[in-house]
């Protein structure tokens, strides 16, 4: 009985026109990114002195922001690296810890609170599976000072 029903459903899918929306397929390491993609901080800028907590705003040109897990062409989600000095490993998902913040729900800004002192900030775009793109879409590393 289940078989019959499934067949009917399949037949119906074939018969009626439906929207062809890309679904997630098998994954490879690091999706290709367009050469002209630019990832940058809308705010703060390099050298900004900030008092207390702040909204960090992420800018992206020539690519789109989507949810982690959504495998749309030329789109990914933001990761904010705070005081990270180790180089990024292109063959591994971007780490997830207190200095690698993930914005897999497609956020384009975040409220950040850091202890007083100098801190570096850097953005990395991750693909559906959190891998960096090839070539990596990465922002300039900026330094901010928290008073």
């Amino acid at each position, binding site marked *: 009985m289940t078989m019959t029903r499934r067949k009917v459903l399949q037949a119906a899918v074939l018969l009626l026109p439906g929207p062809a929306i890309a679904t997630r397929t098998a994954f490879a390491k690091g999706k290709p990114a367009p050469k002209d993609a630019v990832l940058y901080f809308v705010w703060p800028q390099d050298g900004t002195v900030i008092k207390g*907590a702040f909204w960090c705003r992420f800018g992206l040109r020539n690519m789109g922001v989507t949810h*982690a897990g959504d495998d*749309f062409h030329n*789109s990914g989600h933001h990761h904010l690296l705070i005081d990270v000095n180790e180089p990024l490993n292109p063959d591994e998902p971007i780490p997830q*810890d207190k200095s690698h913040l993930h914005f897999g729900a497609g956020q384009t*800004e975040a409220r*950040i*609170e850091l202890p007083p002192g100098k801190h570096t900030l850097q953005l990395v775009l991750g693909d559906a599976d959190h891998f960096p793109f090839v070539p990596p879409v990465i922002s300039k590393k900026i330094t901010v000072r928290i008073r």
Partner: protein
Amino acid sequence: MRGDIRDINSGKNAGTPENGVPRRLAAIVAGDISGYSRLMQLDEEGTHARVRRLERDLIEPTIREHHGRLIKTTGDGFIAIFDSPVEAVRCGIVIQQNMIGRNTALSKAQWIEYRIGINLGDVIIDTDDVFGDGVNVAARLEGLADPGEVFISGGIYEQIKHKIVCGYESLGDRKVKNITDPVRVYRVLPDPSAFKRRRVQKRGVVIVSLSLIVLVLAGGVLWYLTMQTRSRLPRVAFKSTPSEQAASSSHAAKSSALTSTAANSTTPTTPSAPVNETAAQQSAKVPDTSPTAAPTVAAVPPAATPVPQAAPPPPMEPEMVPLPGGSFTMGSNEDPSERPVHEVTVKRFAIGKYPVSIREWNQCAAAKACPFTASGPDDAPAGNLSWSDAKQFTAWLAGTTGKAYRLPTEAEWEYAARAGTRTRYWWGDQLMPDVASCKNCTQVASNDPPSKVGAFKPNPFGLHDMGGTVDQWVEDCFHKNYQGAPNDGSAWRDDGCTSHVLRSGSWRNDARYVRPSNRDGYDTQVRYPTHGFRVALTL
């Protein structure tokens, strides 16, 4: 010295005093029913009931599935916001396509048709409403749309044009009431070839309606045949055990759109029959490709197939360790997120001896109650799971076993992880080699995912991997610290929170993360390779 981050707010629960009014960029979806007053005149109570049902069975779940938030419903419409324009438009399309299916069984006079407008704009979000120009434009776009159509603004179009395979028909710049600048308007055509088809629409309509008639007829015959079969079946076939009902109810949200269609167009059905659920779920999995097809067809078979199935073998339950209730000191001063240190009392409960393994997870996947089959060694901890995935597993486990399986609360997790100790780690204040799976914690450096659970010594409660191995989801919403946390061991929940708490740290985190008091938050719906969970059981 590396600074710690004291507060992370994704911007979802915006609104901090120093920031003034919480503003954010959002895709706003405005929908309303065309000819609502005509429908109300026709049948006031009936229309009201149908609209409520639509909201419950179609609008709300569809918005949720597309990671949106329903801000409010008015008598005949709704307003929702989405982080992603792509998801907003997909949601609009799914609703419209589903409505086509729902209307086919009715006479034209009874059709409920939504008009949907979508705009991208900066909005102010209040607790139960949303304000700003962007909302007004979305509402105006909706007013311009014909019944059954989705109109989007130029801003949305720019974001989605290469991401959703659709046809877009430019309608040029339109002047809208009370908005100074003209708005560029596009009509969304769910399937790209529809753009050309609009010209020969009349012929198309004939073909589509003919095929629908054929389908409905075929469906009718099938329904008739299966009804025959059903009447010959013993009544017992309709009875499902309470646990099965619980299992199926956990999927009710997903499949309700489809089962309720069945309820609309056929006799009152037996939505609790477990077989229906799997079918509805399977079809619910493909709403993007067959939203028009599924409802029409689903209207027939689900009602008709409560064939007695051999009960699946009971699942192998995770090994549980019962713990006595007690008080303990929760939190630490090592990280701002772990403050203030506070006393918590937990009731007795049981917790999984290990994190849920791939073998255990895949039982749920095989039962079609969990969203995907994990690959890897059977004994390895299941990973790449979102909080919602973990919740689906516990709902399934509770449903099939009839036992109160659930996620542990954050307090329960820390109580179990400390196992009566007050030191930095459960084994003492100093890191020791080879006691936990974390980065640089083992003598032989390795970056590979753990190949089995329980590879290291258990803590004094006999629990393995309470720290390291895989991050573990708990029930609580993430809060940046314990200010205002409950002290009775219960979960700290908020309505509609978008991130939940992770405990334990993983093989890719260093020793700081293995501490029993360490905590972090992560987006509820997002999967990441190192994220798993363990189950708890109310005793």
